[in-house]
């Protein structure tokens, strides 16, 4: 793309195909079936949903190979799986299993505190989380074919996802206003590749799709992120930690399509039971925040 080194067009293309859709966290084949039946555009295989990882503590790793295969055999929609930040061997295993997307995710315990995975070395695409434009462009520079907000996974609280999405969109808007002579300094301040900073300044958007994750628990949350500029949403604990997973999954799918239509949003929300319990992010200890993992 304009001589820019970014992920392959076919990989960015798969992210394009997921737009307007919902990617749901699932821990087994049965949940994957429910997600697909509700209209999920893809599923994310993981060992435990983020709220359980948060509760149980310990080291969170890539899902077991058996679980991933079971999920792949059960559904026809794309199957994604999480690898630990910097754990390129987990990513190699996921590549051997032919998962459709690797999420190099802060929800799992990082394997490397200095380096993220070199995503160009793989034949399958990667999605990475980001809190602001600098982090987002560093990940795209490493070859991520899709970006998502980190939010605060497993919190059932949308506030961090909103913060991250707003930081990205206002960062993008700012770049479009800068003169050519200001861009190198801005690249230095953002800690982001100059070529990508220039590209974003010229086009007013990211060169890869930008989705939202981390705290979506209701159809209204999903629509909020879409109205703030997300092009699709990931829902983690929000579905299978609620009292009505199948109905909630379906409602969130419909809300993501009709995110600007409050009448539809009211209609799809009316039959829903209680959402997952939420956490106040301000009362969370710094070391409990998943979003600060990765850099």
């Amino acid at each position, binding site marked *: 793309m304009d001589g820019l080194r970014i992920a392959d067009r076919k990989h960015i293309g798969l992210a*394009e*195909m997921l*737009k307007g859709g919902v990617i749901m966290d699932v821990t087994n084949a049965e949940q994957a079936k429910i997600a697909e039946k509700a209209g999920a555009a*893809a599923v994310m295989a993981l060992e435990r949903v983020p709220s359980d990882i948060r509760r149980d503590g310990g080291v969170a790793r890539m899902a077991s190979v058996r679980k991933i295969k079971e999920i792949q055999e059960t559904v*026809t*929609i*794309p199957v994604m799986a999480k690898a630990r930040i910097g754990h390129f061997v987990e990513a190699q295993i996921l590549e051997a299993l032919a998962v*459709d997307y690797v999420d190099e995710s802060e929800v799992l315990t990082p394997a490397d505190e200095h380096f993220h995975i070199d995503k160009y070395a793989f034949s399958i695409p990667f999605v990475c989380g980001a809190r602001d434009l600098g982090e987002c462009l560093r990940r795209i520079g490493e070859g991520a074919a899709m970006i998502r907000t980190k939010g605060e996974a497993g919190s059932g609280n949308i506030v961090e996802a909103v913060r991250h999405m707003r930081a990205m969109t206002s960062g993008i808007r700012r770049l479009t206003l800068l003169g050519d002579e200001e861009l190198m300094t801005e690249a230095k301040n953002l800690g982001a590749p100059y070529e990508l900073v220039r590209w974003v300044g010229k086009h007013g958007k990211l060169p890869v799709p930008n989705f939202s994750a981390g705290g979506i628990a209701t159809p209204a949350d999903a629509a909020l992120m879409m109205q703030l500029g997300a092009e699709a949403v990931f829902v983690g604990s929000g579905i299978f930690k609620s009292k009505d997973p199948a109905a909630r999954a379906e409602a969130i799918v419909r809300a993501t399509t009709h995110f600007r239509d409050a009448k539809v949003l009211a209609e799809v929300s009316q039959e829903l039971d209680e959402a997952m319990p939420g956490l106040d992010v301000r009362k969370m200890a710094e070391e409990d925040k998943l979003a600060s993992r990765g850099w």
Partner: protein
Amino acid sequence: MKIGVLALQGDFERHRRALARVRAGEPVESVEVRKTVELRDLDGLIIPGGESTTLLKLMEYFGFWPALDAFHREGKPIFGTCAGLILVARDVENPPQPSLGLIDVGVERNAYGRQRESFEARGDADLDGPTSLEMVFIRAPRIRRVGPGVSVLARHKDEPVMAREGSVLVATFHPELTDDPTVHTYFCAMAQRSRRPR
């Protein structure tokens, strides 16, 4: 000319960008279609790539099944890419699923494999004259059967990848992901010709 892009889910935005590159004899306006009433004053409709199972659910829930059937019966052109092809095909396998049956082809879903097997290639096409097209195949379906009334417009390695029957055009690949407006220009010409004098 007004072309709608079904925006329930999928790469509708890329189709709109592709339509913006078309130079027809008249300006081409594109709109996102999320409700059946939005089909009313269109000259043609694109059903984009996306997840066909997701699209099926949303089409059912929001009443698109009968609306698209009626749209087709009015003779208005429909262009389905990838998942869009799966939705308008006569029969679908791997696994079998309901479809609109607007074009007499049989398709197999995810027929090349998973994302690791997605690929780019060049193939030969005949769109009002011979041409060569850049083709991006993403978890693509394969056309396994072509009915007698269907003409094959493009091939990749001797396999049909683009076909047309009357007002319905389909492709297993994604012309909207390239900068080449040839395919969208061809579809807009179909829409132009199908229009009755007003």
